[in-house]
């Protein structure tokens, strides 16, 4: 017999399928149409009110889908200590909704007594690495579970950095026991913004640590005759990122894959199309793997 928790729910792992970021604009469609989507991801900070409809919608949707909590407010890379109250709120949501995955960013948003609410870039030094690892430890200890860390999209680099981003990223996970959430769009955006070699970046990533993949759209700006790519989650995934994703899952293997769409939010069917496109690529690779096993 399967274990049923006291919430009446089975602890549900996030499947190796395509999922979508859950937006309030789509609550009704999801509840009424029960689309064939593997899972949904939420930002826990949007569910940290004392009560109200968002938590009720999430309860309802959680009955039918596995979910993942993708936090944006922990500020793991900050020189300031973590906020115990925020950690406690995060823990309450983890206990209540039993997510299959919990993740945060290789970033910071807390520099003074106020919050940027946008993900700020880290200087890649041994000092920052120790801060990251200590904070990841504290979160994992508090939540009593592993978390995944997402690579950032970045627009600038610090002179004082002592190692490439991918080395810092993987090292933070290895030292803390965290997993990796590889945002393929962010890899593309950062590599093209800084002239880094994408293959070099990806070759650092141990597939055994990858627990989730993110895909999203970005915008392109011309600045003084040069191209800067801005990660705004406001458009369909571009063709270069689709190719990179296909290359990544073919070479490294599959992981639950999320379509993020957080600004200029489309009608639900358009989001579904993106999810289906990711699902097709996952199915294609899965089929090849099965064939290889059979003929191998």
């Amino acid at each position: 017999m399967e274990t049923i928790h006291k919430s009446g729910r089975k602890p549900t792992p996030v499947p190796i399928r395509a999922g979508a970021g859950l937006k309030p604009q789509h609550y009704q469609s999801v509840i009424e149409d029960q689309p064939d989507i593997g899972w949904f991801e939420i930002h826990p900070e949007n569910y940290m009110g004392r009560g109200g409809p968002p938590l009720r919608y999430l309860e309802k949707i959680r009955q039918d889908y596995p979910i993942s909590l993708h936090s944006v407010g922990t500020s793991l890379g900050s020189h300031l200590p973590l906020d115990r109250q925020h950690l406690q709120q995060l823990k309450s949501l983890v206990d209540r909704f039993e997510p299959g995955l919990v993740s945060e960013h290789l970033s910071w948003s807390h520099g003074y007594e106020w919050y940027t609410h946008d993900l700020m870039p880290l200087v890649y030094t041994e000092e920052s690495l120790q801060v990251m690892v200590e904070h990841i430890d504290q979160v994992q200890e508090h939540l009593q579970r592993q978390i995944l860390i997402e690579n950032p999209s970045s627009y600038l680099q610090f002179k004082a950095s002592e190692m490439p981003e991918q080395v810092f990223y993987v090292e933070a996970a290895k030292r803390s026991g965290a997993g990796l959430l590889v945002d393929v769009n962010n890899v593309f955006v950062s590599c093209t913004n800084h002239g880094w070699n994408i293959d070099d970046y990806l070759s650092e990533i141990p597939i055994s640590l990858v627990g989730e993949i993110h895909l999203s759209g970005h915008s392109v700006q011309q600045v003084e005759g040069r191209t800067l790519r801005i990660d705004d989650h406001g458009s369909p995934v571009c063709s270069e990122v689709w190719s990179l994703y296909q290359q990544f899952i073919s070479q490294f293997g599959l992981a639950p894959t999320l379509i993020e769409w957080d600004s200029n939010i489309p009608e639900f069917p358009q989001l579904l199309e993106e999810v289906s496109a990711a699902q097709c690529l996952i199915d294609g690779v899965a089929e090849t793997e099965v064939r290889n096993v059979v003929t191998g």
Partner: protein
Amino acid sequence: MSLLAELQRSFCDALRTAEAPDGALLEMLQDDDLALQRFQVYRNNFIVLNGDALADMFPVVKRLVGAEAFRVLATAYVRQHPPRDRTLLLYGDLFADFLQAIPELSELPYLSDVARLEFAWTAAYHAADALPLQPDQLQNLSEEAFAGLQLRLHPSLQLLASDFPIHRIWSLNQSDDQDELISLDEGACRLIVVRPDNEVQVRVVAEGEFEFVKRLLASATIGEAFEVASQMDPQFELGQFFSRHLFDGTFCAM
């Protein structure tokens, strides 16, 4: 100070200001002739992301001043009052006061009260849930015991009084396509904002009802609150008020 702390503080200083970033910060960035523009991406994202949160919170204020003016106001607000909370759910708690202090907006004297109403709406939306008061909890009470009760109001409930017809302004500006004129001569209004269950309600109420609920919120008994309310507003009918609201979720279980 550690390098990480120093860098994060100068980064934050530069995010908040409209001035060119400090030379010391730019000095810390790898320079490919685009260092400043690269930094501007972060500053722009900081302003836009938090400004968008204000636009979501105050759609009617945005409609009343226009999108461009709202963007200017939001940018100034984000710089002056950056988010103090880990979530953006209730970002903008000082926006009404901020608007009120801007001389250029004095031609829209109702604007800050409209902002207060929009903030109250969202605060009610995210407020704690509570079970409604049930008839069986008041059974077999003598009239005297009933008058001595201290009722608990729903945690989402807020009172709002304005010298201007802000309820009409707010409700007619829920969509872009209204062109009805509202006369400020319509005068003051008193509102109760509450979310008994899933839907936020904005109720226009008379002076007596407003005062009655205000007293209850300050822990007065039913009898005490009624005495004050009926003195201020002889039209106030306690029976009529209770028949509508005693068990509709305005009050919560004892």
